[in-house]
């Protein structure tokens, strides 16, 4: 019972900090504090929490699907695929409503993951560390295609906003799609056991009666939607899924029915913390949360790579 309380307290502290900190002071009186919170601070805080939660959950699902804990969507080219889908729809139908763009991004993300799974299956060696390398190169190739396409069609500035996550532009009316992540998180929690079973590998999971293909397709479909939502509203954040699921797993194991909420809370808190840090480091200017997370996340990844294997969680 103590753990949920601690998590709630930490998140509450972060949310309070996030609502109070910003270029315009809440207490100076020259602005209506309630108005500021409703139109800017609250949307921004909610966006960081939702994006962090979604990315953390997406990381878990991808890791279980390929039985490898060194990958996550941003390490297997998923955001890049989503960007290609968004670019394509922007070119084909510039005035498309946002949800159509979203769907196009999600479909492209799904196709990108399917491509990666094909690569992973054909990979000659089962070295867990080879998978993220191939995934990153795969993402790099997709990104090169995206850059080229954006360059020749003059859409570079779109690509720029999708590539780096920044919460400073989040205001009321421009982030509400992200609430979809909350719904997806609930859906994922309902099938948490199945996602854990994916991690046992195809044969063993099927032997336990799991419809492996269907479950994996469902999980990856959720991942694709989350990534497309995040990319289109706030831009990509690297390493969130990797860091959240690995740290929680080292600490509490992988029984997702028990841990999925912890992982989600960890991801949400970490992204919000990165955003707050970005607001503070060079106050009143801001540093994008994506930049902070790239540095911190890469550092944690290096530690995961070279640290001794996790001790028993007891």
């Amino acid at each position, binding site marked *: 019972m103590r753990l949920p309380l601690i998590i709630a307290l930490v998140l509450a502290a972060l949310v309070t900090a996030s609502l109070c900190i910003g270029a315009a002071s809440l207490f100076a009186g020259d602005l209506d504090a309630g108005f500021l919170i409703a139109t800017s601070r609250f949307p921004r805080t909610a966006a960081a929490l939702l994006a962090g939660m979604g990315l953390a959950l997406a990381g878990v699902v991808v890791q279980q699907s390929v039985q490898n804990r060194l990958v996550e969507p941003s390490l297997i080219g998923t955001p890049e695929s989503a960007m290609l889908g968004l670019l394509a729809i922007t070119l084909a139908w510039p005035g498309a409503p946002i949800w159509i763009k979203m769907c196009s991004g999600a479909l492209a993300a799904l196709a990108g993951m399917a491509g990666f799974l094909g690569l992973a299956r054909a990979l000659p060696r089962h070295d867990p560390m080879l998978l993220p390398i191939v995934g990153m190169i795969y993402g790099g190739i997709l990104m090169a295609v995206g850059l080229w396409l954006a360059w020749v069609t003059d859409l570079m500035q779109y690509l720029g906003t999708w590539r780096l996550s920044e919460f400073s532009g989040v205001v009321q009316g421009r982030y509400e799609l992200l609430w979809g992540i909350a719904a997806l998180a609930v859906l994922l929690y309902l099938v948490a056991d199945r996602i854990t079973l994916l991690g046992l590998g195809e044969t063993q999971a099927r*032997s*336990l009666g799991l419809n492996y293909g269907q479950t994996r397709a469902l999980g990856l479909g959720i991942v694709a939607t989350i990534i497309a939502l995040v990319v289109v509203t706030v831009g990509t954040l690297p390493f969130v899924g990797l860091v959240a699921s690995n740290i929680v797993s080292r600490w509490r*194991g992988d029984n997702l029915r028990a841990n999925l909420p912890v992982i989600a809370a960890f991801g949400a808190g970490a992204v919000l913390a990165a955003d707050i840090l970005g607001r503070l480091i060079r106050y009143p200017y801001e540093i994008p949360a994506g930049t902070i997370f790239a540095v911190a996340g890469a550092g944690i990844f290096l530690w995961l790579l070279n640290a001794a294997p996790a001790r*028993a*969680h*007891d």
Partner: protein
Amino acid sequence: MIEVSNLSYSAGQAQILRDISLTIPQGGITAIIGPNGAGKSSLLHCIAGLLTPSGGQVRIDGLDPFDAPHRDRARAVALLQQTPRIATRLRVRELVAFGRWPHHGGRPGPEDARLTEEALATFDLTPLADRSLETLSGGQRQRALVAMTWAQSAPWLLLDEPLNALDPKYARDLMERLHDLTRPAPEQRSVVVVIHDINAAAGWADRVIALKDGEIGASGPCNDIMTPATLHAVFGMAFDVIDHKQRPVVIAR
């Protein structure tokens, strides 16, 4: 009873199993032996409904494993694959509890908890129940996996090379345990096990199916198969068979 009729299986161009027909009666341990590449593992996976054959059919107590809903199939037959690579960090109890999944589909009840504990106890895992899988030795890990398959409560337990990476002591303990559990009391289960160590089969199996080049070389009660002539026909080399405490012992000549 498992009934296999005219079963064929090919992977790409290679024909792995050719027109196999056999029946395995309920109870006891049935060992599948044969040289490397004879198709032992493929046969086991086809019976469990996890590999789709190119022809023929399989019935497990009348159930078609390829047609039945996944969870019905998993309640009829449980398969443990050879040295599964499990990257997931689970405690022993959590792993074994997943054996109950085909029964509760995500909403475990008290009965599931009871059977999980029972499976843990059956394989002496209760003291290890809260340990993480990755802290276990190879033998303990294998026992936990067998316990998970056991907790599936399927009448048929299919094990693919369960003795791999086990010390002689653990191998003996496991086979002894399976031997006792497949006697009629307290509840009769049947074990089909792929084994490459002929003497492990000779020492514990009730029946033996010997595969050769994707076909059945011989099958029958253990003592009938463990003869120099039959073994020579299957493995293409000479063996001596001696009798030791009413069980055959096979020595390569």
